[in-house]
């Protein structure tokens, strides 16, 4: 039995934590919230220098091939620090989509650039409000051209490429690769819950696009991509939830009321114990997800959905109760708890919601029992 990260991965995690602690991430997140844009050039260079962008990309495509354990611990640290970088869109979505279904040429053209941090990428699925479902995909692909509108697209304002879900001339789902710098692409930024993770509106009007070849049903490939991203997003949420619990616990020890620390009241203790329980459930389920990713299992659905259900629950609970533990000060613009609350709220709607993953979890159980 070995449900623990390797010594190397734990070293990457600790090193990453120290690196991000020195990067003043929270002030950058706050600046974005105050409308000052995101000043992350140096942070991004540092992340690239740490080798994170190429961690899970094989060496033959210019990556470091360290593997998914490393990517999981990196995700946790990015979540803990709220680092405002286009890492998840690039590494969890664009690179994964290319590795799942890209042709040799497509992989050779883009994976080295994503690994080296020279380019960033994203995955465009949503077309406005609504659940993730094949019927919600309306963008059209015909004769090598893409038309339609995708929003919100994570980091779509800065990404160099996007993998876009669309329908071909016969109405079948396809995934296509689009160079976002090409003609026929218009980008617009959107005001969102969490401005430190920008979301864009992408309008395609006959933009040149290439199909991603997939051996399986392309919609299944989309779902496989979401499964893999779910495990990494779960680690991000676990990191965020841990930061909230740490912040709330520290405050509960310092803040005095009625002549004693508020953390000596069971009303606070039991609240934070419940957050701890939710967090440990989420962390443990995320570990099983990491095991699935690293062992190269094809069917990750049950582990991914289980991890994601728990991680959404843990981060939203931790972020809410962190504000509650802080009382009035926690509700102010200047205090930090809102930064986590915004991130938790936005992540809970990213790459599938709680409802989507609960349904997918039960689908996986039915599939397991039918087998």
């Amino acid at each position, binding site marked *: 039995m070995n449900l623990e990260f390797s010594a190397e991965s734990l070293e990457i995690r600790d090193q990453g934590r120290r690196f991000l602690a020195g990067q003043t991430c929270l002030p950058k997140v706050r600046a974005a919230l105050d409308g000052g844009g995101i000043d992350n050039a140096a942070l991004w260079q540092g992340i690239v220098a740490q080798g994170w962008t190429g961690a899970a990309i094989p060496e033959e495509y210019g990556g470091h091939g360290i593997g998914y354990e490393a990517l999981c611990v990196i995700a946790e640290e990015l979540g803990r620090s709220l680092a405002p970088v286009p890492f998840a869109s690039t590494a969890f979505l664009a690179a994964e989509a290319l590795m799942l279904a890209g042709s040799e040429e497509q992989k050779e053209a883009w994976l080295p650039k994503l690994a080296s941090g020279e380019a960033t990428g994203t995955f465009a699925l949503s077309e406005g409000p609504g659940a993730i479902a094949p019927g919600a995909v309306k963008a059209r692909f015909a004769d090598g051209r893409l038309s339609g509108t995708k929003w919100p697209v994570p980091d779509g304002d800065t990404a160099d490429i996007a993998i876009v879900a669309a329908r071909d001339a016969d109405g079948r789902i396809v995934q296509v690769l689009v160079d976002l710098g090409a003609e026929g692409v218009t980008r617009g930024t959107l005001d969102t819950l969490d401005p430190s993770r920008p979301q864009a509106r992408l309008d395609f009007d006959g933009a040149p696009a290439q199909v991603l070849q997939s051996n399986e049903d392309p919609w299944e490939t989309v779902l496989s991509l979401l499964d893999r991203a779910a495990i990494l997003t779960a680690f991000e949420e676990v990191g965020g939830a841990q930061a909230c619990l740490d912040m709330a616990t520290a405050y509960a020890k310092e803040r005095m009321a009625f002549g004693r620390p508020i953390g000596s009241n069971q009303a606070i203790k*039991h609240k934070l114990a419940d957050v701890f329980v939710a967090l440990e459930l989420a962390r443990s389920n995320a*570990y099983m997800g990491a095991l699935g990713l690293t062992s190269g299992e094809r069917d990750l659905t049950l582990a991914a959905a289980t991890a994601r259900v728990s991680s959404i629950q843990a981060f939203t609970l931790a972020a809410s109760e962190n504000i509650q533990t802080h009382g009035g000060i926690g509700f102010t613009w200047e205090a930090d708890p809102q930064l986590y609350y915004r991130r938790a709220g936005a992540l809970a709607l990213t790459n599938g919601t709680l409802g989507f993953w609960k349904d997918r979890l039960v689908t996986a159980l039915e599939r397991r029992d039918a087998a």
Partner: protein
Amino acid sequence: MDLEDTKAEAEYRAKVRAFLDAHAEKRVRGAAPAPSRGIDAEALTRAKAWQAKKAEAGFAGIRWPEEWGGQGGGPIEEVIYTQEEAKYTVPRGVFEIGLGMCLPTMIAYATKEQLERYTGPALRGEEVWCQLFSEPASGSDLAGLRTRAVRDGDEWVINGQKIWTSGAHLSDYGILLTRTDPTVPKHKGLTMFFIDMHAPGVEVRPIHQMSGASHFNEVFFTDLRVPDAHRLGAVGDGWRVALTTLMNERLAVGDEPRPDVEDLIAFLEEFEIDGVPAIRTPVVRDRLADIYARSAGVKSARFRAITALSRGETPGPEASIGRLVNAMKQQEIARLALELMGAGGMVSDPETALRAGSFQQSLLAAPGQRIAGGTSEILRNIIAERVLGLPGDPRVDKDVPFQDIGRGRS
């Protein structure tokens, strides 16, 4: 990462499986678990026979020192045995407390001669032990207990009452925590003994639980005389001795009550609402996913703890969440199944009810899970104070002689 055993663990697991295959029936998923109404004479005989078999095959006292008939194994062997045994239907609920908590306390504090007398019969299931700690006025606040032991020459005279004593009605011996000095603060005036449950002055009255079962008892002591030689630890050091016992509790407890989440899934796949399996219904899926994610989390947290044990390390705080989560989950599992049965869910007669009434029985047994062995509130306090490092509750009885502490209702 992997979920594989090491070579030594795999060999041990194979031995355990071979033993269980030869002597026990495999559990069937989704089948109704036998209703647990308490242990009668026949069940006690079966449990004793099973314990004797385990002892003979070398699966009793796995972590005990070899000197006292144990296997000298580590916690990982015990975990492997427990995991495998859970896949079979075998008698449980008679020896866990004695072998997991009482006798380890004896091994830590009793004399060599006493251990030569008591360890063997306990291991072979010939003698049953119980733990006499809780009292009507001291449940969560264990150190507030009032059972008095007064010294009389080479003996102690004991008067008072214990309650919630699991298996006292089946027991031959027990370890007993008493107050020997009420003039000092409460934790400092306690002393531990072991006693003969058949001695004059011990009266056991089973408690009828709301579920209909009787696992617990009240135990009354009237001028019970205990030789000083049966004292465990120093006079006034009983709290420390009790902590030894309770530390062993964390490893001793761990069974997930049935029907569990897998029993629930099997039910939801089979039971139909208007011709469609219940599991296809959005409301059911939402609630099942919630329950499943928590079950899986507890299981994976246990895997993380086992990983630590397997490496010879102490498990982290994640090991403490299981009881808290499982206690709530049992009620939710029962409620979901019963709700789908509609008004028919009220019927608990095993002949008529689906799954032999096991979900109904579970609903009635579930409140006890949130109380027994430390209430959910005490468990939250422990997490908050020992894991998160939050300050202790303000204690008005701290440093006050026990006899001066205010008393309310029992």
